[in-house]
């Protein structure tokens, strides 16, 4: 009886792992084999990766650039705002926090439609990479704000600031000397989340992009639709190589921020 209650959950867990992992392995293998139909016996090759690089290296650089720009904007907008929200923990702050979190709840498609209808006619903006950046910032900003806010809410910020003020530090100095260093675990976790999500963002980007501005996931969708399986797999492999270390760093930083908050 005891083994029965353990074996079934174990089986479910293993089967779930298999369901999630097998296609990942398939895609890695497909991206590295000469001919996926004939299997591994056809030999291993980096040819497909090379082809991906030729076809899509622009999309990779665009995604990295967008992610870094997105990080800078969310830092500039999000960290001071999180501080202001932490110092005024009232109803208005809750409402504002809830409002900026809307892009987490509303499907990207709806947000993109909203942006397109308002700014679609402004051609210079519509066709520039900044339009995509706006979408990415909308989607990632709540993560930055909440990550910083949760760390700031866990420390006695008011008293620390009073301490600094009693020693002669004005508001801006206190922000730089006290608030930012003590919020650092949250800023780090938020920053890694922002970069990870920005690199993987598809829903908004697909609607907002113009043909010559393809990000990595847009390129992926393109390759799934029109390239042979090996190229699509190799491209997916490139994406994994970029996103998995970021995901691990993000999980490590979030766990660290949680630990520090306790």
């Amino acid at each position, binding site marked *: *009886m005891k083994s029965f*209650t353990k074996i*079934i*959950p*174990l089986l479910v*867990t*293993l089967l*779930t*792992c298999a*369901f*999630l*992992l097998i*296609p*990942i392995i398939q*895609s890695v293998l497909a991206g590295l084999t000469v001919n996926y139909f004939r299997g591994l016996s056809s030999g291993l090759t980096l040819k497909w990766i090379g082809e991906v690089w030729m076809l899509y290296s622009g999309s990779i650089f665009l995604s990295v650039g967008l992610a870094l720009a997105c990080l800078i904007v969310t830092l*500039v*907008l*999000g960290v*001071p*705002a999180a*501080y*202001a929200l932490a*110092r005024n923990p009232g109803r208005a702050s809750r409402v*504002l926090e809830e*409002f*900026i*979190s*809307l*892009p*987490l*709840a*509303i*499907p*990207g*498609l*709806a*947000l993109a*439609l*909203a*942006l397109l*209808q*308002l700014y679609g006619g402004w051609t210079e903006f519509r066709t520039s990479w900044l339009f995509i950046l706006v979408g990415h910032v909308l*989607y990632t*900003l709540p993560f930055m704000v909440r990550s910083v806010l949760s760390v700031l809410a866990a420390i006695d910020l008011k008293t620390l600031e009073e301490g600094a003020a009693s020693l002669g530090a*004005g*508001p*801006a100095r206190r922000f730089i000397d006290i608030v930012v260093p003590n919020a650092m675990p949250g800023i780090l976790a938020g920053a890694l989340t922002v970069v990870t999500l920005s690199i*993987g*963002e*598809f*829903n908004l980007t*697909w609607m907002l992009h113009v043909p010559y501005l393809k990000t990595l*996931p847009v390129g*992926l*969708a393109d390759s*799934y639709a029109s390239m042979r399986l090996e190229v*699509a797999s190799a491209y997916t492999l490139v*994406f994994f190589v970029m996103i*998995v270390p970021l*995901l691990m760093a993000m999980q490590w930083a979030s766990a660290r921020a949680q630990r520090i908050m306790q």
Partner: protein
Amino acid sequence: MIQRHFLTLCLLPLAIFTLAFLAIPLGRLVLAAGEGDAGWAIYLQILQTPRYLSTLGQTVVVSLAVTVAALAISTTAGLFLVRNRFVGRNTLLSILTLPLAFPGVVVGFMIILLGGRQGLVNQILPGHWTFAYSITGLFLGYLYFSIPRVLLTVMAAAEKIDPALEESARTLGAPPLRIVIDVLLPALAPALIAAGAIAFATAMGAFGTAFTLATDIDVLPMVIYTEFTLSANIAMASTLSVVLGLVTWALLLIARSLSGTNVAAGG
């Protein structure tokens, strides 16, 4: 006071950005819905047009199925991982959370690799085992997307359960299955409702997976997309977006008030 001015200054950039790129566009979207020939009666049109109605029904059914399956699988696996420590546990946990960073398009590709024309299942079982581009494929794709998110929510809640609860049930003579039913599941209930709402909302709005797999299936995000890009029926696309946005937002609001977690929809 100077301090208050400084705090206002801190909030200002975010307020301007949010106003310009979130509040006003969303307002515009809501207005655009009423700007078609039908005016505000367009919301009624959804209910009167069989295609939209069946799309809505189909989307809800798939989303419900995904929610139930993801909850069942993730709760089983999550409880197992929380309550047992063994070699390889961390590896399993890593595998189960790996897809967290995959966009919907990549998840769609994963399903193609499993069940597409050149997919694994079709290779192992010769015949016509191609399910990737059907409603089954969509279901599996959403499931693939939801399992890691539901699992993390369930595990976080399970780790907070006081072990003394289970121990006291054991001292009272409860067998393991009864402990799960009488002690663990009730303690997990808020997290399960929250995770379920997240899974449901995510599946309702998932675009990337549908975009890769469901070119022939009418689910809400695909219909919005085709109304907008192919039919240029902007009013209907906006109306359906508003409906979809309201549903997912309301669900995630409930989820967050129950569990305090924040997990992104999308996909």
